[in-house]
């Protein structure tokens, strides 16, 4: 059994559209990408799961609100509760918030405009598997492309996640009205993270930046480590 190429699932919902880019980026970083359809009730044997960007269920009701009822989401919640690594990108972040796996909610951008451009992020915490390859305070250039990316938490929740070190990335120049300039949050345990920017679109110099490879590469490394040890002790 080789653990040199960790298996990472990419969960596709009806309306996901960055699933193939995520698979391509992960494979380029040394992972073995495993496509998983949302209707699957069980996750394959993988060391991590990525929820890709897109417009699951047409963003009906609220972004991510319907996708959380997909059969695979129950298995994902169990996987996460056992310490499994889960990364939600853009719509994946929205889904994780709606599913209660991450704190907060995503609201329409303050400008009401769909924003598609590179943004600069500051690494607030390197104490997560996703940012372990980054330096504290490091600035990353990664694109965003969303209409509803303003992370919201009320004052109490914001104070709580700040105190617990769950804010992982912040925008240096807030593009969307996100509370506290938050671009990425993780759960208390640190094994589940969501971010609005798209690291999978910043893994090749041809695309203008390779900073996304730091995030996804961190995930691949952590997945490689997790493949060697039982999931319950992989993170913590």
């Amino acid at each position, binding site marked *: 059994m080789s653990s040199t190429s960790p298996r990472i699932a990419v969960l596709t919902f009806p309306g996901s559209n960055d699933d193939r880019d995520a698979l391509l980026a992960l494979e380029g970083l040394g992972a073995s990408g495993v496509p998983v359809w949302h209707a699957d009730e069980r996750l394959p044997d993988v060391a991590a799961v990525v929820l890709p960007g897109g417009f699951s269920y047409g963003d009906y*009701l*609220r972004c991510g*609100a319907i996708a959380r009822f997909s059969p695979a989401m129950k298995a994902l919640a169990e996987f996460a509760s056992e310490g499994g690594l889960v990364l939600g990108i853009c719509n994946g972040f929205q889904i994780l918030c*709606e599913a209660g796996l991450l704190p*907060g*909610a995503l*609201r*329409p*951008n*303050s*400008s*009401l405009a769909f924003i598609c451009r590179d943004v600069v992020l500051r690494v607030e915490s390197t104490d997560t598997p996703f940012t372990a390859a980054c330096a504290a305070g490091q600035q990353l250039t990664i694109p965003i492309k969303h209409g509803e990316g*303003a992370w*919201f*938490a*009320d004052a109490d*929740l914001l104070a709580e996640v700040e105190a617990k070190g769950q804010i992982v990335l912040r925008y240096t120049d807030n593009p969307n*009205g996100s509370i506290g300039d938050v671009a990425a949050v993780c759960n208390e345990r640190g094994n589940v993270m969501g971010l609005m920017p798209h690291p999978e679109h910043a893994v090749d110099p041809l695309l203008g930046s390779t900073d996304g490879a730091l995030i996804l590469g961190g995930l691949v490394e952590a997945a490689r480590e997790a493949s060697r040890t039982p999931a319950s002790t992989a993170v913590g």
Partner: protein
Amino acid sequence: MKATVLVRPKPGILDPQGEAVESSLRQLGFSVAGARIGRVVDLEVDASNPDAARTEIERMCEQLLANPLIESYEIEIQA
């Protein structure tokens, strides 16, 4: 039994849709001091009486129709 659920952004939550509509109304010459945009869900539920319907719809709101972190809801049961 028919019911209507009104879902609103909670006070203090930025509502850019409402702001855009407010500004457009002003451009039309209306004197508007505020506009907030929510959502209407018309429901037809199987319930024996209005109280039972309300209890059931409250659960729907908590679990799906509204996100309690950012939205409030109001339930109107049609007689």
